[in-house]
């Protein structure tokens, strides 16, 4: 049969095609053509796991308690793991310090994990080697240097196990000396306590107990020491109590406009050179009120009004043992005076704890300076940096870099080939905290677990294992941490008698507490007051006083390669992607500087050039610039040009004009030269005031009042909040089951932007790059509007600042819903304004018609080409195509998740069980979410509170977000 067929074919070939064959061929051809046209998504096969790990279900998220590795504050973190990869960092409710919040930087550490620019292998002299070779070569090298000066340089490590590993290493190599420094240092506070209390400790500040707070340039809500804990504590006192309302009073003196200053009841701009005088003036007034001996402070002169100084002293004196004076100054004399004030107020033991002090800063500037000096002098034979990058983040970094090439042995344990590691001959690829075992103890007695959420993505190794290997005690980090807990933590705690049980419990909760021994009591020694003086000199003609600060987004700069943080705008200036020199409007006018003009800042031989920014509230004669920048150029970070790959014609890629300000960390006086070029800043908000420039009418999206006004008419910010604009044309929606709503307490909100990053991580929001931000095309679903008092044409020198989180208001009578021609945005029976991406054709009519301007349009297909970075995507949320509108939907996937769970468990949803990402992460619990149909829910009670109002309610759109009027504790 088959041979017959063959024959037939042969004949066909010989004789040419028959008619039938021709038709067949044509048919096949057409089918193939049709098939080729029928384009489909690429296929991928899902293979079930043969040996499935217990408790892991594909597609179902696991949550794991851990500790945030973003900074030394070591807040508690909850890591969401989906199909083997961590996709979200959240705050850990049980953590006694951070209390459930997690800051923007902490949440963004997740993206650091998926940074394809990380070191992938250990290197010797730039060449890839195996870990075994690396260990062997380096151990031999270290041995050969025994007896010579070898230094181990780290930042403060509040990590007991890691410190134990360091101790092992130091034991094995006795000639090595450990040096601790902090790029964002609290050295002066530690040194001051050495002088005043005889102990080099950092107090554990307890803002929750403080009813009066006076701050001197300490940005404790933004970046200072442990901001999540502080913000959480601070917020507790900021809500006016019922009855005759009371709330804490907060006065802030500062040389720039910080987040904390912006949230203070009274913000007083002062020059850095006046800091000492201002503190001393308050101290003198305080002494007079309290009737104690006035400390000898020398001559003082400050531009801060005597009223503000009086007020500061007054509120402190009124709240003995319930007040707190804090200063972020690097001036020892200032810190000694602050200690004196806290001491005479009896705050030690109440709002400051130095018996169980904070362990998150122990660095010493003098020790580090000494080391750099020695290195430059060639006295150092070897140096090992562990997760430290002093070439970048130390003022003498440049000198150190030169010195490093002369040092015989240079080792860096780093997660990328950073400024320091690139000078090192031995580089160890360090694992990310989400890949490693470890622990942290920010305050004695509060110890938390760091546990891996994923196997190392690259051939990296935790620093702990590297150190142990070099100490000759090769051990896995897990065994070491567990061993340390068994021998050091377990014996001190009382909750459990069985170590395995204790260990499992600790792993589950992430936190363990034990009774830590208190340091002996010590009181203020007045001897310290002798010799305090103002050490900062005033600017001469043509000079400016200079302030450098850690910004909220990039902090010390170690996360500079993180696109989420690069794009996150500063809460006050609203600028993203770059650092800039901040000028007061008067100085800018005098120098003829406009925003975006390049400005050269010079001190001695050093200088840098970045754009200018004009900042209301900056004191005259002072300029400020943020640390943490200057690490990346436009090319280093793909997120800055997310759309170049699909261009037809060239699309603008904005260059980044940033500079490293660390060399100026200790410079107090600089000279300024305005350049010619103008590079406009990428500002997310381009108009700063609630009042319009022509009519000066205030638009009541954000309502605020004083405590007195609030006490008089406890009815929300003046006008009534009831919707009075009729019922509209359409039938009302009915909400038979749940009706989701949110309350935003403007008194609690500090504007820290944790919610912004939480939303970005949860909802796969792309970063768009500087040029797109400049075109006002940021993609944030939630943003924090910042308003100054006054208006563009009538701007006060020192405005009050107010923050307002703004996201989709989920209007019951939504203007966006009626105008969409394809019904892509519709109303759910639970009160949520849904966006159906599949249907959206991108007419953008809804965006026009949204009075809150919270809808975001995908102007391009934003870059998703970095396969490593794409691992961060949340599979529960669609990645939107270009041409599609998107917006907040109260994290609908999270609502559904809880709904499904409650249905499986056959129960009602508990109040507070559903938490959108923004609500979860909020360190101050300013956001409350729940079912307003449930009259017992928290949000239902907030919706009828005495401070409630709804933004732009008179438009008749009936929003589902209930704002709580901002109340300031000032005299009206």
């Amino acid at each position, binding site marked *: 049969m088959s041979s017959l067929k063959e024959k037939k074919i042969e004949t066909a070939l010989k004789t040419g095609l028959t008619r039938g064959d021709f038709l067949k061929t044509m048919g096949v051809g057409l089918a193939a053509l049709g098939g080729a046209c029928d384009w489909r998504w690429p296929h991928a096969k899902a293979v079930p796991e043969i040996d499935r790990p217990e408790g892991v279900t594909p597609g179902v998220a696991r949550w794991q308690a851990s500790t945030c590795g973003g900074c030394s504050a070591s807040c508690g973190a909850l890591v969401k793991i989906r199909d083997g990869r961590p996709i979200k960092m959240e705050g850990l409710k049980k953590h006694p310090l951070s209390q459930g919040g997690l800051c923007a930087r902490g949440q963004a550490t997740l993206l650091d994990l998926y940074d394809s620019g990380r070191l992938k292998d250990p290197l010797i002299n730039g060449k890839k080697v195996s870990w075994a070779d690396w260990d062997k070569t380096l151990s031999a090298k270290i041995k050969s240097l025994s007896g010579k000066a070898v230094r181990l340089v780290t930042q403060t490590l509040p990590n007991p196990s890691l410190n134990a590993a360091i101790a092992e290493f130091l034991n094995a190599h006795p000639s090595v000396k450990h040096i601790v420094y902090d790029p964002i240092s609290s050295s002066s506070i530690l040194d001051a306590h050495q002088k005043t209390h005889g102990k080099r400790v950092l107090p554990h500040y307890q803002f929750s107990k403080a009813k009066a707070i006076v701050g001197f340039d300490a940005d404790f809500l933004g970046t200072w020491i442990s901001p999540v804990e502080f913000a959480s504590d601070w917020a507790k006192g900021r809500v006016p109590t019922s009855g005759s309302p009371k709330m804490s009073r907060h006065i802030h003196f500062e040389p720039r406009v910080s987040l904390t200053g912006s949230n203070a009841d009274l913000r007083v701009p002062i020059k850095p050179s006046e800091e000492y005088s201002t503190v001393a003036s308050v101290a003198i007034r305080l002494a007079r009120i309290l009737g104690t001996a006035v400390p000898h402070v020398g001559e003082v002169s400050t531009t801060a009004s005597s009223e503000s100084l009086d007020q500061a002293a007054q509120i402190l004196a009124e709240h003995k043992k319930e007040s707190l004076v804090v200063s972020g100054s690097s001036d020892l004399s200032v810190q000694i005076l602050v200690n004196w004030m806290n001491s005479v107020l009896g705050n030690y033991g109440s709002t400051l704890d130095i018996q169980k002090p904070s362990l998150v800063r122990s660095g010493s500037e003098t020790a580090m300076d000494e080391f750099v000096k020695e290195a430059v002098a060639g006295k150092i034979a070897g140096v090992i940096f562990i997760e430290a990058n002093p070439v970048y983040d130390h003022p003498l970094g440049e000198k150190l870099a030169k010195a490093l090439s002369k040092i015989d042995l240079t080792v860096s344990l780093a997660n990328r080939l950073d400024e320091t590691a690139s000078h090192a001959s031995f580089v160890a690829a360090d694992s990310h905290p989400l890949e490693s075992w470890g622990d942290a103890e920010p305050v004695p007695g509060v110890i938390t677990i760091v546990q891996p959420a994923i196997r190392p993505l690259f051939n990296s190794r935790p620093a702990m294992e590297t150190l142990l290997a070099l100490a000759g005690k090769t051990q896995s980090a897990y065994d070491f941490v567990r061993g340390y807990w068994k021998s050091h933590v377990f014996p001190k705690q009382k909750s459990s008698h069985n170590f395995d049980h204790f260990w499992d419990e600790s792993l589950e909760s992430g936190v363990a507490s034990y009774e830590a021994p208190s340091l002996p009591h010590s009181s203020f020694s007045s001897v310290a007051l002798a010799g305090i003086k103002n050490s900062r000199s005033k600017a001469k003609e043509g000079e400016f006083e200079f302030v450098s600060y850690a910004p909220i987004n990039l902090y010390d700069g170690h996360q500079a390669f993180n696109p989420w943080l690069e794009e996150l705008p500063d809460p006050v200036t609203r600028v993203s992607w770059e650092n800039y020199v901040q000028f007061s409007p008067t100085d800018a006018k005098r120098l003829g500087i406009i925003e975006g003009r390049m400005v050269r800042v010079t001190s001695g031989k050093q200088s840098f050039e970045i754009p200018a920014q004009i900042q209301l509230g900056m004191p005259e004669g002072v300029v400020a610039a943020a640390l943490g920048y200057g690490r990346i150029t436009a090319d280093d970070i793909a997120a800055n040009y997310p759309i170049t790959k699909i261009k037809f014609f060239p699309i603008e890629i904005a260059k980044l004009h940033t500079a490293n300000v660390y060399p100026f960390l200790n410079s107090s006086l600089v000279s300024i030269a305005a350049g010619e070029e103008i590079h406009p800043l990428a500002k997310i908000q381009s108009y700063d005031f609630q009042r319009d420039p*022509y009519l000066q009418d205030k638009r009541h999206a954000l309502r605020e009042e004083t405590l007195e006004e609030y006490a008089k008419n406890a009815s929300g910010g003046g006008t009534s909040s009831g919707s009075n604009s009729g019922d509209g044309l359409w039938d009302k929606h009915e909400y038979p089951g749940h009706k989701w709503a949110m309350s935003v307490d403007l008194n609690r909100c500090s504007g820290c932007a944790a919610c912004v990053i939480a939303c970005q991580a949860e909802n796969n929001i792309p970063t768009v790059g500087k040029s797109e931000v400049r075109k006002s095309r940021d993609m944030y679903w939630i943003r924090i509007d910042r308003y100054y008092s006054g208006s563009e044409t009538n701007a006060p020198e020192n405005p009050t600042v107010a923050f307002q989180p703004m996201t989709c208001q989920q209007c019951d009578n939504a203007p966006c819903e009626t105008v969409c021609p394809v*019904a892509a945005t519709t109303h759910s029976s639970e009160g949520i304004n849904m966006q159906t991406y599949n249907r959206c054709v991108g*007419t953008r009519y809804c965006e*026009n018609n949204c009075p809150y301007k919270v809808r975001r349009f995908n102007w391009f297909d934003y870059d998703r080409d970095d396969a490593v970075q794409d691992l961060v995507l949340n599979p529960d949320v669609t990645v939107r195509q270009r041409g599609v509108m998107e917006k907040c939907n109260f994290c609908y996937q999270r609502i559904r998740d809880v709904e499904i769970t409650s249905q499986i468990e056959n129960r009602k949803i508990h109040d507070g069980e559903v938490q959108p990402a923004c609500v979860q992460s909020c360190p101050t619990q300013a956001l409350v979410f729940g079912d307003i149909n449930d009259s017992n829910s928290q949000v239902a009670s907030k919706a009828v509170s005495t401070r409630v109002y709804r933004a732009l309610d008179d438009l008749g759109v009936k929003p589902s977000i209930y704002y709580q009027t901002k109340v300031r504790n000032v005299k009206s």
Partner: protein
Amino acid sequence: MTTATASSEILRPPLVEGGKTYGQITDDICAPMEKRPPLGWFVAFTVAGLALLWGVIMVTDLIWTGVGTWGLNKTVSWGFAITDFVFWVGIGHAGTLISAILLLFRQKWRTAINRSAEAMTIFAVMCAGLNPLLHMGRIWRGLYWLFPYYPNTMGPLFVNFRSPLLWDVFAVSTYLTISLLFWYMGLLPDLATAAAHAKGAIRRFIFRTLSLGWSGSARTWRNHEKASLLLAGLATPLVLSVHTVVSMDFACAIVPGWHSTIFPPFFVAGAIFSGFAMVLTLLTLSREFLGFKDYITLKHIDAMAKVTLLTSMIVSMAYLTETLIGWYSANTFERFYFINAATGPYRYCYWTQMLCNVVAPQFFWFKKFRRSPVVAFIISIFINIGMWLERFNIIVIGLHRDFLTSSWTMYHPTYVDWGLLIGLFGLFFTCFLLFSRSLPMIAMSEIKHVLSSEKHGEKQHA
């Protein structure tokens, strides 16, 4: 009849000058189709073609790369595309007004200009219709969802009948259909004439086919007249409805400066105003360059200038009313809109609009200017610019500073925005120039019809 004709001869100048015979008329009007066009035509065609080409390139970039190539942002989501859309729809209106309403009112002077005005309508609506398509984020999805015959295969959701944008789809597509039918209906007798006049066989064949076998019999004429009248009746409400619906895109939104009940009449008046300006532009040019001075006479220009003046005053009145109501509303957002328009960052656009739409047409009070093609041309250009700016101002000034000050932005058009604008003009003029070479630009049959009464009178006198 005789006395009526005689008196009309006394009172009114003839509609066609130069004492043409029927044959001459056919020769004259067919001339641009048959002769080699003048150099001016080639120059104009090259310019228009290049503009179109540039537009095509820019639109390719737009579709390939994304709507982000435009200067829009999170606050100003509509810009040039919607401005162009409203502008071109508006232009279309004059054609329909001239051909339908003036037909119903038996305005004989319209005969010389109705053909090109109708052509203008069709090209303008084509240009207009492109804009809402191109401005969509996902044009490939847009057609799919917007035409409601399809969605039920894709799920239970239908289109949103509450959305003014959907009404636009219906309004504009209806308008295009009726205009096209009406235009083609009017062309039929002329196509037959052109076929008869044509020299080459191919040309004759094409025109013969296009004329759908026009026989010129009394029955054909009667049917034709009846159909024309019916279509005119259908088209007349469209003059009002299309721009009313377009205005609802704005009036139904809550954006300050948009949310206003005056918009439907205001937009219709504006549409006729801008349409007549465009007709003036086109006719002053074509009478000059295509040798139609005897057909498009100064009387025509005069009449159109009068309509322009009238509509200008309606529009000016609307500006005033709108501003007054803005103040009277005591609504801070409304008040701010007008102050921001007049003194804000886009104030130059606003005052240019006022200069062009309110001040410039005032010259038409004087007969001297009404009868000067040069002045009419210049003023028409002013009005074209002014009416484009009016739409731009409504859209952009309304959006860029709306309710929340934190979201205020500026809209700066990019080269792709400009590319679209230029490309649309290119498309329009390319079509119009091709039309002037390929189809009878003046309705021969109707001209002859108008002439016949005049000739008839002459004969009787003789």
